[in-house]
């Protein structure tokens, strides 16, 4: 099975039950999460973050199938994938993206 799936497929099975939170101020734009993801969740921002990269963000959280590959492959502790409704340090995507993360 290939590591990176450049072609994104629509989700098979339950989707949209996961909060996908990206710490955009920590992201160094390596591209692993976007490319390892089997469905279409991530995209690059058009403006840079505080450390000078165009960070990843959660563009289509509703497609997430909870495979956790992005969480495992991120080298910068940026991504949290938690079941929706579960109290977690991650919080919801919109709330975190509205704030400035450390």
């Amino acid at each position, binding site marked *: 099975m*290939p*590591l*990176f799936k450049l072609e994104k497929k629509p989700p098979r099975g339950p989707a949209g039950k996961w909060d996908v939170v990206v*710490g955009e*101020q*920590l992201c*160094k*734009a*390596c*591209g*692993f999460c976007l*490319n390892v993801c089997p469905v279409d969740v991530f995209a690059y921002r058009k403006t840079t973050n505080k*450390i000078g*990269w165009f960070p990843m963000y959660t563009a289509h959280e509703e497609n997430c199938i909870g495979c956790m590959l992005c*969480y*495992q*492959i*991120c*080298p*910068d*502790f*940026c*991504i*949290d994938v*938690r079941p929706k409704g579960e109290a*977690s*340090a*991650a919080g919801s995507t919109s709330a975190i993206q509205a704030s400035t*993360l*450390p």
Partner: protein
Amino acid sequence: MNHLATKYLRPSQIPTKACHGCGIGMIENWILQSIEELGLKREDVIFGTGIGCVGRQTFATWGGDNFGATHGRALAIATGLKLAQPDKKYLIVVGDGDAASIGTSHLIHAARRNLGVTVICEDNMGYESTGGQFSPTTPAGYVTNSSPYGMVEPSFDPCDVVKAAGATFVAETTATQWHQTVKIVKKALQNDGFSFVHVRFPCNENFGAYALGTRDTLKNLEWIYEHTQGRKADGSETDFTWETGIKHDASNSRPEFTRILRDMNARVREKLGGGPA
């Protein structure tokens, strides 16, 4: 930061000094999962690191007590420290230079003594922090900053060295084997003895640039993936394959070093106490 990083890491050190696409952060993320799955708290674990990319990028990220040793000497310091603080879990996170080159003597003797620490040897197959010179684990023929005509020195696998020296847990994974690494680090931490986990990971800036010809993060991680599988994307064979998995598991079969000394002390003091006045 993700929830484990929030729980265990030092916020002032995140983002780390690592380059983009570097494998060190990935491996640390998996180590945090192992720590959490074992129910360990910050104060239960001590991190020891060295010099070089792995040493410097990891140092001070851990939120609890940690030390950054001189080059190659993390295990020497850990030997003294474990005598003073035997009940903690030790994660000695070092690179291939620190463990398999300058620090190999201490690696061998810590394994021989069965010192109760877990060494995570994160191997990017060269001295990448100083620009990309070759190391004792650089594969044969590869071009690096100091092997411009190709690596001609034979390389070795530090797993073989520690196994021969008496390590009680030896395993190898790569940067595309997250589930295996989490499970293996958990097992390694549960060995009250010397555990050695060897993880190969990609370097984009130096090894990628000079040996593989690209700084593309996807291509370099794929190179790791191919050499883990033994097969390239087009189905052809790779020039070599890493043998991954648990190579030797004699966990908890031999007494741990500081336990040996403490037992000896108890015997000596008992004899003194029971002897003639």
